[in-house]
């Protein structure tokens, strides 16, 4: 099986150049000037050819919450968003804290056969923060990282043991940072807008304290650690200074944290309810700066699909989370590249090369011999976000109606066209 992507601009984390890409048996066979040989051709004239995007923080909800999303709908949404690989968080039902659930997810993804789905195992049994899950067995079954996402492992000793034990299997802990006692039922950022709306606030410190703790553990143990969905200006600074002194810390953020502020909560629209909460302008700016200077290594969606009944309730009762995998590239391109904050190459680094590097996944580049995981985008195409048209079951987005630029035209996984827009 051969396929040629012809006439496009190849964009990697380092450079952009005009080149054709020859795909053979699911792998990238060569990059350069390629003559027609009668095999199928994708006309990429005017389009940009990117290494397949990787979202290392999504919620596919299966098993257990198929009303919100399942592996099929989530994978369909992922490829529509240009993602060739996703890593799914373990807060399913049952929790993905054992090899059986890891295998189940891998098998379902194989049946669905759209994007690559890499399960993330829980650090502790049931994500309860008490005893370590069977980390080695999960690794053997295919888990690529560990996380108790949705909450922090509050007991610092357990967290230490988790990081240490996981390191023996070459796995990293991805830390959701939130001091539970300090959050105390808060649903939005604590500040002017929480006071204005009367919605209970949660301090930046609730996030910062756990970011600092997990960095302190990584530093003391000389182990790597990854900080999930950074939202505060102060956490950006904590990570920046840790990196400066050589701590092995990496970090991610989501499009909503560099696009929105908590001004949008005053509508009481429950689609603005997310954890960590949307913060203020100085946080939004600092997160953007963090992406620019490399303090924050990657953009993830924290794709958190919910059904209508989870959101059509009082703000306090609504589920946390934003569904976003289908517009992550467009939002990031529009907000960061179009506005001149970062280059397109830097965006490829944030959305493909770095996630691959952090988790040791194959991909993140367009080079001979790599799997042909490729995303082809039309950067000049502009459109209006309309969640009703999404493949994801989760229509919960605060971005409906927003004009964005950057449309996914093709998503290839292992050389096969999995999405054509």
């Amino acid at each position: 099986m051969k396929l040629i992507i012809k006439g496009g601009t190849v964009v990697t984390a380092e450079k952009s150049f005009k080149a054709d890409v020859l795909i053979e048996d699911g792998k990238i066979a060569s990059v350069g000037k390629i003559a027609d040989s009668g095999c199928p051709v994708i006309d990429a004239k005017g389009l940009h050819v990117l290494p397949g995007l990787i979202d290392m923080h999504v919620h596919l909800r299966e098993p257990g919450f198929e009303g919100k999303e399942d592996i099929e709908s989530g994978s369909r949404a992922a490829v529509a968003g240009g993602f060739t690989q996703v890593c799914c968080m373990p807060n399913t039902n049952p929790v993905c804290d054992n090899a059986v659930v890891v295998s189940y997810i891998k098998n379902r993804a194989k049946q669905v056969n759209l994007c690559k789905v890499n399960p993330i195992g829980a650090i502790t049994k049931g994500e309860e923060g008490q005893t370590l899950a069977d980390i080695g067995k999960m690794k053997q079954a295919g888990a690529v990282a560990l996380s108790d996402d949705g909450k922090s492992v509050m007991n610092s000793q357990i967290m230490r043991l988790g990081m240490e034990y996981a390191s023996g299997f070459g796995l990293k802990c991805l830390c959701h940072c939130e001091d539970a006692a300090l959050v105390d039922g808060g649903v939005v950022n604590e500040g002017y807008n929480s006071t204005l709306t009367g919605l209970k606030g949660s301090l930046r410190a609730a996030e910062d304290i756990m970011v600092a703790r997990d960095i302190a553990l990584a530093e003391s143990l000389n182990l790597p650690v990854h900080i999930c969905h950074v939202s505060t200006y102060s956490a950006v600074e904590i990570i920046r200074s840790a990196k400066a002194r050589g701590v092995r810390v990496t970090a991610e953020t989501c499009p909503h944290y560099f696009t929105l502020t908590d001004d949008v909560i005053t509508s009481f629209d429950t689609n603005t309810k997310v954890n960590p909460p949307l913060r203020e302008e100085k946080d939004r700016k600092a997160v953007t700066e963090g992406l620019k200077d490399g303090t924050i290594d990657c953009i993830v969606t924290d794709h958190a699909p919910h059904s209508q009944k989870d959101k059509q309730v009082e703000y306090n009762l609504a589920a946390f989370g934003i569904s976003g995998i289908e517009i992550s590239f467009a939002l990031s391109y529009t907000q960061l590249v179009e506005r001149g904050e970062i280059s397109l190459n830097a965006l490829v680094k944030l959305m493909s090369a770095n996630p691959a590097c952090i988790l040791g996944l194959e991909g993140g580049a367009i080079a001979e011999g790599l799997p042909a995981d490729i995303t082809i985008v039309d950067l000049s195409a502009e459109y209006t976000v309309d969640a009703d048209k999404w493949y994801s079951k989760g229509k919960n987005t605060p971005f409906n109606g927003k004009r964005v630029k950057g449309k996914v035209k093709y998503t290839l996984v292992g050389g096969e066209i999995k999405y054509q827009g």
Partner: protein
Amino acid sequence: MLKRKDLLGLYDCSAEEIDEILTEADAMYESLDKGGKCGNVLRGKTLITLFYENSTRTRTSFELAGKYLGAHEVNISSAASSVQKGETLIDTGMTLNALKCDFIAIRHPMAGAPKLLAEHVGASVINGGDGMNEHPTQALLDMLEMRRRFGKIKGLKVAILGDIKHSRVAKSNLFGLKKLGAEVWMYSPATLMPQGIDRLGAKIAKSREEAVEGADVVMGLRIQLERQTGGLFPSLSEYSKFYGVNDAVMKYAKPGAVIMHPGPVNRGVELTPALIDGKSSVIVDQVTCGLSVRMAVLKLLSRYREERL
């Protein structure tokens, strides 16, 4: 002219709208005082009070306001309703809508709940207090009390002392009073002062005395017992010693200043019993103002409903 389907808060109301409500409420107060001739402007209309939190005075006040104007009146309390069976607020709202009611006065422990209800029903929704958000009719009755005592709101200094952080009363008063030109000072333990309240127009005092200095109105807010058990302040006795209002504090107020409280009062905590029962207290009269304000709101919302038909 009040032209709105619902009354959800004072943050969104203009000074003119607030003024119109107060003028109408003042007339209601006078009629009530002269024997209760208020007209049957709500004849054939239905008011439902939908209370998800306990309340005596607000609920009774809404009920009687409706009855005195000739409306049918039905109570739903969350304990007795299908809420206990897990019905959502929107479903409850659609049911009430199908029962063809005209007004729903709702109290709910969660901010924004009345807005959510209002978006799903044709009835006019009146916010009777939603979590830490707003309690517009309480603030309006406080303002009516002030207007009747001082003839105007503009230029008054109002000191609000107590649990500001959890108080929808403090916030609605702040929004309303600022719009009508009053100065609002606040004082509380630091654990009970919300972030950014100064950006909303409040002046934050450094002491009780500074808050009360030259004040025309001193308002105490109810301290919920669970705030103490939750560790927000050490004990009730410490609270009253450092944050309560007593004679010594009132010496800083303007001569003729009045003492207000939204009730129910914890005697000896927010205010000393002597002050509650003393000459400067208008706490009991506030209740009549509350009835007047709710009648006025119902009447004006009803007028808008008629106009739209």
